[in-house]
């Protein structure tokens, strides 16, 4: 199974990660530069948007891979991806309100 290489599958996942990494980098950079010139909370808000999108990128990557696996009727790995997604989602439920 592992020797089967699907160039298209790899490329789609690669683009998700690339857009996430470079997009968030520029959003965070914009926040930092704004902070140098503008007073107030706006720069931190932009930085936070970048940080949150960065946290979302791996989640989107799992969703996209999950979708592609199901589309290929590769059920086993589709369900595995869904399992990873569930674990990621549980983290956001259990992280609340602890100190």
């Amino acid at each position, binding site marked *: 199974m592992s020797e089967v290489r699907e160039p298209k599958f790899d*490329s789609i996942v690669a683009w998700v*990660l690339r857009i996430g990494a*470079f997009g968030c980098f520029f959003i965070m950079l914009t926040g*930092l530069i704004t902070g140098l010139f503008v007073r107030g909370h706006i720069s931190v808000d932009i930085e936070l948007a970048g940080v949150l999108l*960065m946290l979302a990128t791996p989640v989107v990557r799992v969703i996209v891979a999950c979708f592609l696996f199901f589309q290929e009727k590769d059920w086993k*790995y589709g369900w595995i991806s869904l399992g*990873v997604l569930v674990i990621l989602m549980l983290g956001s439920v259990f*992280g609340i309100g602890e100190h």
Partner: protein
Amino acid sequence: MVTVLLVILGFFAGLLGALTGIGGGVLLTPILALHFGIPIRQAIGASLVAVITTSAASSSVHLQRHTTDIRLGMTLELATAFGAAVTAYLVGYFNRSALEGLFAAFLLYSAITILTKRGKVKPLEDESAMIVDETVIPPYEPKRYPLGLAASLVAGALSGLLGIGGGPIKVPVMYLFMNVPLMVATATSNFMIGVTAAASAIVYYRRGDILAEYAAPLAVGVFLGSLLGARLAPRINTKVVVYLLVGVMFYLAGRLIVHLFQGSL
């Protein structure tokens, strides 16, 4: 200005990480805690964001070269994400001293491992070391999934505790025990780091331990540093850089231990 210093710190950590192939993540948290006075849980949170950023950027390069085994990665991510989410949750109940002690131990362990194992197994080649246009990967079938999943659970758990990627555990296990070619093991480990760190980071964020004013400048610096590092790596004697990294690790471990004893007086 703290923001500028954080960008510079991230830059040098990213540079060191890309030059040596040993993630810079392990340096970030102790420096943030010791020299910036950032509470250790927030330091780990900031480090996790930087780790996700570099993993996404470098993993997209590996994917374009078709050296990543997405199916293997996804399977092992079940374990890394679970381990990471659990320890990230438990960290909420740890006090500062326990975390600092863990960090000192992990730094010493990493530094000694690098010194003693250098040359024997080289699982940590970064992508710049294997820029081959037409990569030929021999056919293989991953073996010993239970062992791989167990090691991934440990790697994930450490990631949630320390804000690191955990590559130094996953790469040797895939390569030595699971019958995966080194190049694929490295790329797949890198691929898994993003999801592993995200599993922890989501928990840290919900707890309020990820502050954009620390995480964003750090991630920007690490991103730039690792881009430059990947370009410089083929032209630099990385041996010197590895010793520099080991030196920094020993220094930070020492400072943490001193800090621990001062704290308890």
